[in-house]
Structures are given as C-alpha cells and as structure tokens.
C-alpha cells in the first residue's frame, strides 16, 4: 500500500500494535516528528510523551498512546517504535500517576541533598541514582502532561 505506513509499537514484553496507518507523530528526542509514507531513513531516540496514530487520514487522531521513552526506526515503508513502556492514554490512572509524580519528586529532592553531602568515594553512585530519579520524574511528569492535554 503506497499511501500507508506500517506502524509497529513494541515493548520488551510484547508487540503492542502492528497496523497500517496514514500517519504517526512520534515524540522524538529532539522534537516531535510525523511519519508519512515515503519518509527518509531515520533512527531517533524517543522521549516520554504521546504517540498520535492517524489511522485513516491525516486529520483525525485514532489512537493516542503514552510512551516513557525508547527508540524509533523509520524507513519509507514502516515505522517501528521500541518503547520502554507504553500505555494507551485513556488507561492512565490519574490518581496513580499523581502519586507516582509526587513520590519521584520527593525521591529526587532527597537524592539531591545526598549528592551535596556525598564524599568522593560514593559520589558517582549517588549521581547515577540521581540520574535514574531524574528520568523517573520526567516520565511521571510527562504522564501527567499527557492526561492534561487529553482533558482539554
């Protein structure tokens, strides 16, 4: 099919989605990009955000899926997203997301204190923990952001 792209969304645990679509918009590491049939070869990182799937035409979104990061590979015929974690936006639980964000925030702040006090020996370890916490926080915030954008 010339006017469709084969879109595949895979998480480590399973193949989540595999269908022919008109267009997908992927939150790339350096900005969102839309994939139409015939897109040039591209490999990109994916930041936490929403993937918009346009199944039939380029005007209406048929599916919105939250991904917490990963990688995307684009060729003229297909678009493959390797997601760390993916949930349809409608299935995100607002309360859970909120408490996750709160927890991540608290954890992050605590670690920042630890970094300030850390001695040179365990500094790198604490820094690694801080980076992990930052990533978790970013994911949690992006999740909330996703919910907000849907509500509008």
């Amino acid at each position, binding site marked *: 099919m010339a006017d469709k792209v084969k879109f*595949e969304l*895979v*998480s*480590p*645990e*399973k*193949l989540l989605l595999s269908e022919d679509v008109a267009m997908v918009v992927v939150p*790339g*590491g*350096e900005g969102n*990009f839309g994939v139409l049939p015939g897109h*040039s*070869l*591209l*490999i*990109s*990182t994916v930041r936490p955000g929403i993937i918009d799937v346009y199944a039939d035409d380029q005007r209406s979104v048929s599916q919105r899926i939250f991904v917490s990061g990963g*990688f995307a*590979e684009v060729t003229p015929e297909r678009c*493959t997203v*390797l997601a760390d974690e993916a949930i349809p936006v409608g299935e995100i639980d607002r309360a859970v997301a909120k408490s996750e964000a709160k927890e991540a925030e608290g954890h992050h702040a605590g670690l920042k204190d630890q970094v300030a006090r850390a001695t040179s020996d365990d500094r790198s370890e604490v820094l690694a923990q801080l980076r992990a916490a930052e990533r978790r926080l970013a994911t949690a915030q992006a999740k909330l952001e996703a919910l907000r954008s849907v509500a509008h």
Partner: protein
Amino acid sequence: MASLKDLRNRIRSVRSTQKITSAMKMVAASRLRRAQEQALAARPYAERMERMLGSLATNLRSQPNAPKLLAGTGSEQTHLLLVATSDRGLAGGFNASILREARRTLRQLQRDGRQVKIFTIGRKGRDALRRDHAKLILENLTEIGRPRLTFANAEDVAGRLVARFEAGEFDVCTVIFNRFKSAISQIVTKQQLIPFAITEAKEQDKADLQGAIYEFEPEESEILTELLPRNLAVQIFTALLENAASEQGARMTAMDNATRNAGEMIDRLNITYNRSRQAAITKELIEIISGAEAL
C-alpha cells in the same frame, strides 16, 4: 521376604510420592505454557532491536571512538561467565547440563591462560559452582523474576554488568543458558554479550540495506550509547525467558517420567504383595490339612 505389613506400607508410600510428582507435572505444564507465551511475546522487540543495532553498528565499529560495549576493550584477558540456572531443583538435567557447559568453558579458558570470573543467576548454579570455584564468583542473584519475570529484572542484571564492565573488571562476557526447543529438548547455549557480537545472519541482513544511509537524531554515537546497554538488557531478558520456559519443560518431562516409574513400581509391589499373601494362605492350609491327616 518382607512381611505383608511392610509391603503394604511400601506401596502406600510410593503411591503418595506418585501423587506429588504428578501434581508437580501439572503445575510445570501450566507454568510452561505461560513461560512459552511470554518468551514468544518478547521476541518481536528483540528482533527489531537487533535489526536497528545491525544498521547502526557496522559503520561505527571501525571508528576509534566506538563505544567499548560494541568494540571491546581491546584485550581478551578477563572473561566473565554469566551462568543462568534455576532456583528450584527436580528439573531433570536442566541445571546439570548448564553447569557442565559452564565448567567446560571455564577449564578451557583457564587452559588458554585467561582469567575467569563468574556471575550466577539462580540458587542451583550458585550452590554448585561455589563448591570448587568460590573465589571466582563475583555476584549471585537468586529468586529473580518471582512470581513473574519482568523486563526490569533483566535491566537490573544488565546494569550490574555494565557497572562492572566500566570499572574494568572484565573484557568479555558470555551468558550460558538453556534455549527452549520443546518440552523434551532444551539446548545449552553460549552467547557472547560484551562486546556485542553481530552474527552471520545479521551480516546477511545488512547486505540488503547496503547503501541505505540513515539519518540520526541525535548523533549516531549518542544513540548508540543509549541503545547498547538497552540491547544488553534485551538479550539477558530473552535468555532468562528461554531459561524459564526450559526449566518448566525439563521439570514437566522429569516429573512425567517419575510418575510413570512410580506406577511401574506400584504394579511390581502389588504382585509381590499378592504372591506373598497367597503363599501365607497356602502354608496355613497345608498346616491344617497335614494336622488333620496326622489324626
């Protein structure tokens, strides 16, 4: 000859053993189905990850600043063996075959003058290797993936490996696990994890893509530094899933055999029991008759 009471007790005990083994067989069969489904579901991700890495890796491997996870440290002195076994026994030759391969590899590497270190997953592997190679073991993980193996488990293992690799503790890492073929056959597999090995099949794939130039967002090398640890986790995840399915398969087969053997044993014991009962009755009759004749 054993008394009738002894025989009865024996039969009863074998019968209860048979009940246990047949229950274990049922449990293993249902777990096997789940493990197999999970392993199957994880395959697409691993395949696509491999394809992506394949298209990235070729042009970068030869560059001087290629990441170490891809190009290696330039030395092959220290090997790390990641030995993946199960936590529970009673799974036939499952753990024994992995350990045999691990020991063989270890001896061979040592004969070549290499230094070997061991990282075990699963209680059985740890217990067996601790006996004669306690000094080589760096780390043990047990009870991993209970009740269900998740990708986070694999990421955890990968994180530990990368940390040790970056600290310069080893140059080459190989995982030894059982690849699931069917419930009755599992194949011990050795797979090199670090540096990342592009196999023949993948080389072939790339030939089709030759001349195709990818655009990278952000930089190629930046993507690679993120992708490589992730790929490591994926490979470990696949290995652990295959191992989990193999374990259940091996256990199911072993328990099926045990159940059948117990059945045979019960039959044999029953025959002996009936014969000795009959013999006792005959003996008593002879005694009565000969007593009566003597009068």
